[in-house]
């Protein structure tokens, strides 16, 4: 019922997370009826970003520069490296304001059935970093899923072989959580990683 160009726009908008057919239609009509200038800006921004944004050569995060600003920064402590799954995790850790080392972004986690092994996560690049004398310590901040655990273990083994101190961020009972409502697996983890007080 819509002309081919409009249908194509609606269909394309559906690749956005959380956008179903109804909201795609609403977005398309809104852009075309009321905000053509905004639509053009959006199109330009998308074009530019797709064309220019690639991976940081040092930490693999998304950036349009050859090396991202965190990797370039002189203020960051190059002796500590925090390994995360996604660029959004870097953002989250930066928000916490308590970490001043550098990052390494895997862009995923080990998942053999999906064809994601050590090479796909750039662990050969991480190994290169481990061989640099500056690096002293690695903090693995992968998610507390089984895939995240497997990834953490693989990286920890690599680090140990190269005599680098390695730790895993703690996870378990969330701040403000009540034990009664926490599932057994999470509690088991929390117990296993308890610390003296």
């Amino acid at each position, binding site marked *: 019922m819509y002309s081919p160009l409009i249908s194509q726009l609606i269909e394309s908008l559906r690749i956005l997370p959380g956008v179903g057919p109804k909201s795609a239609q609403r977005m398309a009509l809104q852009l075309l009826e009321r905000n053509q200038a905004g639509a053009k800006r959006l199109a330009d921004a998308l074009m530019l970003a797709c064309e220019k944004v690639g991976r940081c050569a040092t930490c693999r995060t998304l950036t349009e520069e050859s090396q991202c600003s965190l990797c370039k920064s002189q203020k960051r402590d190059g002796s500590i490296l925090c390994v995360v799954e996604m660029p959004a995790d870097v953002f989250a850790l930066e928000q916490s304001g308590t970490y001043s080392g550098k990052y390494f972004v895997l862009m995923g986690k*080990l998942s053999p*059935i999906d*064809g*994601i092994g050590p090479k796909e996560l750039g662990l*050969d690049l991480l190994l290169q970093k481990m061989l640099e004398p500056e690096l002293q310590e690695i903090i693995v901040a992968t998610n507390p899923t089984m895939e995240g655990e*497997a990834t953490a273990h693989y990286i920890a083994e690599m680090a140990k072989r190269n005599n680098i101190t390695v730790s895993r961020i703690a996870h378990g009972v969330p701040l403000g959580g009540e034990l009664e*409502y926490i599932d057994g*697996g999470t509690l088991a983890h929390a117990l296993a990683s308890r610390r003296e007080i």
Partner: protein
Amino acid sequence: MRIDLQPAYLLHSRKVSDSRLIVDFMTRDYGLLSAMARAPTKKQSPFALFRPVVISWLGNKELKTLTHHELAAVTMPVLQGQPLFCGFYLNELLIRLLNKGDGSTSLYEAYQYALLHLPSAVSPEPLLRCFERLLLDEAGFAIDWHCDITGCAIEPHYWYRLNPSAGFELINTQPLSQWCLDNRPPANTYEGDSILALASNQYHCASVQVAAKNIMRYLLASRLGGRALKSRELFASSLL
């Protein structure tokens, strides 16, 4: 068709949208199952690997609709380190070798047995070999472990070559030293007693473990066609 509260293990999940996932389970009575599921809310248990759950589903097509998912009231040791890698290997084997609906209750039990014993096993190899043998049988790739391809019983001191589509082929009845100059068997050639040990899942002897590993690798490779198992990369001692 509607199935209620079936014991199962999640093997793999894949997001298809913000609110939906395709989940693959090994179920106790219905073999390998694929279903469309809603992403769990914060109050529901997340989909997690290697944890016993009970699930309910609806549907007659290959892709079912998951209607219920909760943790089973059984505790399992948490897989960590190498045993965790072994768990991923088992999951990949099941997904790659079984069709939807394939897999018996004994295979489900063998999977559960492996998950239960991997964390405390001195070596994971016997557990993996037992599981691989059963899985190959159930995936329709059984070979005869007691007789060679002509129907004669496997003799402990004869030598056999493995033909993955037919079985074991007798190639020599003499001790290795008499027909092999360097005393090393040719590729894919095994002594009868190793084959018989595998037939009865007896893996204490180191030479049997080596032969069993080679036989299984060879059989699995021929069943998997070209594409190698990704989870094997986890076991490589070094990356480069």
